[in-house]
């Protein structure tokens, strides 16, 4: 028995680390030579890591999303029939056959890059470790950002630079120095003056011809893929209705004013969640996941409500599981906990998956109408718009009422317009007479 240690390969010049974006194997899997084990993403490309040998996966060295330094252990494989490898005459490993090719990267037609031979170190328990020779990695060049000095420190610059700055009216304390010890060079001053001029002079409108090329990576890439999938596969129908939430707001503020100190402050969302549970009880096919490839709708008993949440790195959808089994306060507490976890990046994959229906709410930014995109492969999403006080005709006079729109989208393949309307009208009725949310019927 022997072991192969596969390290994060050198995936390109000047790259020091790569993000693990996909595991194609898990511990215990049997893999064949050249089978793809994992995919890593750099800012240049996604690179697939093939297995150099047949073997069984013993250990995975990173989780998806981890940024792994080049050369760090990535996978350990158990390989068969390696006892004989103790002999020095044993045939060389595949990886050792072509050391010159190690590290070469072949671009493939699909744009992905394949590393022909991952950097492989063979560790046979019965043999001294044999290392595979490879050309030294190119030195990683550090692009140091121009140093700014500590607060109050005098800028370092030659007298000539100081004089030029003085005459140009530039304050050297604001000029980053790229030279040794943060020394300000003539070039630094040039750059500052060119840049500063655009800002300070601004005699009129200036054309900005700059184009920034921003790689869509990580979470942003995932969001992009998911949105494209949802919009390309699901024929959306969006239904907008207005809801009079005056009574609900009265109830909410009363509950908040009299709540126990250990209970969270209620927003509108827990009420909506509970109302959805009620509505779904009557229309269970709205709480479903549609596997359109297999042609099966998985209609769930549990109401797992995804809550679209804006985080620093982008849109995330933590899931409040089993809302049907949670009361109002529990919904509120779980909602707060998940939102915090998502924003601080601590939400687990579990907490970010498994929803059966989704709410999207932008609060005060909610606008009048939105066209929510369904959280694929679900079949419905409920969008909350901004609440405003509007004059409402009560038959004899205008009265001020707190009004709020719900913009909801449905998968028209599964949900007919009629069903969508019934669902939203039911939620409207529940929210307008909130006692109904809590009363068994």
């Amino acid at each position, binding site marked *: 028995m022997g072991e192969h240690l596969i390290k994060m390969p050198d995936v390109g010049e000047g790259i020091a680390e790569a993000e693990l974006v996909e595991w194609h194997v898990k511990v215990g899997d049997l893999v064949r030579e050249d089978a793809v084990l994992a995919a890593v993403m750099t800012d240049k490309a996604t690179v697939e890591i093939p297995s150099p040998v047949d073997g069984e996966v013993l250990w995975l060295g990173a989780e998806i999303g981890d940024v792994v330094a080049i050369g760090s252990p990535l996978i350990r494989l158990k390989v068969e029939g390696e006892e004989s490898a103790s002999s020095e005459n044993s045939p060389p490993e595949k990886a050792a056959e072509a050391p010159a090719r190690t590290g070469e990267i072949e671009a493939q037609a699909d744009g992905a890059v394949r590393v022909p031979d991952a950097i492989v170190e063979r560790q046979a328990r019965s043999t001294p470790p044999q290392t595979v020779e490879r050309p030294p990695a190119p030195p990683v060049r550090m692009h140091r950002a121009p140093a700014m000095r500590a607060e109050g420190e005098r800028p*370092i610059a*030659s007298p000539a630079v100081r004089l030029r700055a*003085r005459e140009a*009216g530039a304050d050297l304390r604001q000029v980053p120095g790229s*030279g*040794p*010890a943060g020394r300000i060079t003539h070039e630094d001053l040039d750059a500052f003056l060119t840049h500063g001029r655009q800002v300070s002079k601004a005699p009129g409108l200036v054309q900005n011809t700059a184009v920034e090329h921003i790689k869509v990576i990580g979470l942003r890439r995932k969001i992009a893929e998911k949105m494209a999938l949802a919009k390309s596969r699901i024929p959306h129908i969006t239904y907008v209705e207005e809801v009079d939430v005056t009574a609900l707001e009265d109830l909410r503020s009363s509950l908040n004013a009299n709540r126990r100190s250990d209970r969270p402050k209620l927003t509108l969302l827990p009420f909506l969640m509970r109302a959805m549970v009620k509505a779904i009880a009557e229309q269970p096919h709205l709480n479903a996941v549609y596997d359109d490839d297999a042609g099966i709708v998985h209609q769930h008993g549990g109401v797992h409500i995804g809550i679209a949440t804006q985080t620093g790195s982008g849109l995330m959808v933590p899931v409040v599981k089993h809302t049907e089994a949670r009361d109002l306060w529990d919904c509120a507490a779980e909602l707060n906990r998940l939102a915090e976890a998502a924003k601080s990046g601590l939400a687990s994959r579990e907490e970010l998956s498994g929803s059966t229906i989704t709410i999207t709410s932008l609060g005060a930014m909610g606008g009048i109408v939105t066209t929510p995109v369904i959280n694929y492969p679900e079949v419905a999403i409920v969008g909350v718009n901004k609440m405003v006080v509007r004059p409402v005709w009560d038959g004899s006079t205008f009265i001020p009422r707190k009004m709020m729109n719900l913009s909801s989208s449905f998968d028209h393949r599964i949900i007919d317009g009629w069903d969508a309307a019934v669902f939203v009208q039911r939620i409207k009725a529940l929210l307008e007479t909130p006692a109904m949310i809590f009363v068994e019927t």
Partner: protein
Amino acid sequence: MKDISCKLLVIGAGPGGYVCAIRAGQLGIDTVIVDAGKPGGTCLNVGCIPSKALIHAAEEYDRIVHLANGRNSLGIRATKPELDLAQTIAWKDGIVGRLNSGVSGLLKKAKVKIVQGRARFRDGKTVEVETETGRQIVRAETVVIATGSAPVALPNLPFGGAVISSTEALALTSVPERLVVVGGGYIGLELGTAFAKMGAKVTVVEAQGRILPQYDAELTRPVSKRLQALGIDVMTGAKAKGLAKAGSTLLVEAEDGSEASLAADKILVTVGRRPVTQGWGLDELVLDMDGPFIRIDERCQTSMRGIYAIGDVTGEPMLAHRAMAQGEMVAEIIAGHKRVWDKRGIPAVCFTDPEIVTVGLSPEEARRTGVEVTIGQFPFSANGRAMTKMGEDGFVRVVARVDNHLVLGIQAVGHGVSELAAAFGLALEMGGRLEDVAGTIHAHPTQGEAFQEAALKALGQELHI
């Protein structure tokens, strides 16, 4: 006499004033400069230049005396030399005269009008000058005060008779047999050493615990050693009490409290210099003061609009090259250029034997700023050129920041190190790091190599030690 109106009036034609006037003239400013004496001020007439002349003459004489004292390792035979100090002083006066006319020529070339006489403010825009031919009124839009400084007298030891200041010391036509120097600062030691070399029996009376108290002990040690070798008695912690009734005997209270009397032919008092803030009508102005000095801002502007002050009258360090840089800057400011005092260092040279040169922060000062410092020191005893000059005493020391190796200060003591001030000043002013100094080829064999080696040593890469 017809009144003069001008754009700029400079009061005082010392290094600060005349440089200011020359630059102003070059920049097309209608400039008048006033001084009661010859152009060049203290520095040129009774300071830097004449003292260096005297020091040089003394060195030459001492060298030959040394060679004439029997066999020497150089293998040079010489006969006992003789010194005609009157001739030396005449030679020195010749140099001063050349420089006087040089400065006058430069002023004229820059179209600066020179008015000789004593200036006195009437108000912030008007000055009256007592000239040989009468009273001259000068009205100016802008005035630069560059009145300089004068030797401080001790109250119990006023100048006169045997008690002299550096000015008189530089005009002595015979070497005093016994010279007592009161004040062990750089002026007293420079002149005391020179007179000792010329044959005087010199005693230095210093009130503080050691000579040259503005420098650290390591820097002054080679100087103390040399003073001893020259037979100069140094009394530290001693106070000059006054003259004995007999006349030229100085009463001194020694460190242990005992009284001593030092018989002397001349008593040279060099206890410091004070800014000249009297005699030119300071009372007519409303200037903020900074102790005894005129307060200035980073543009040498005083608290009165249109009145600038430069040089010794504005404070320490009282050095000619500081005044010159200020003068140049002020002229450019008056011409409408954007300038501000942003110098990183003002080198200071002490022409003792051996010489001391410093620029920037001493190790102690650097530590006090709160940054972690590294120090590299290289002795001249390991420098080939110093050996061939028979001047192995001393060292070069570099003070730098630990984090980014920025050079914060450079000090040296040794023979002829004053000329290293140029390299030191440039390294500091350019924002040099240890690597810059270490990576610059320094010519071999020169004493300057010690600078490179000191930087290498601070980096832990020294080669020759």
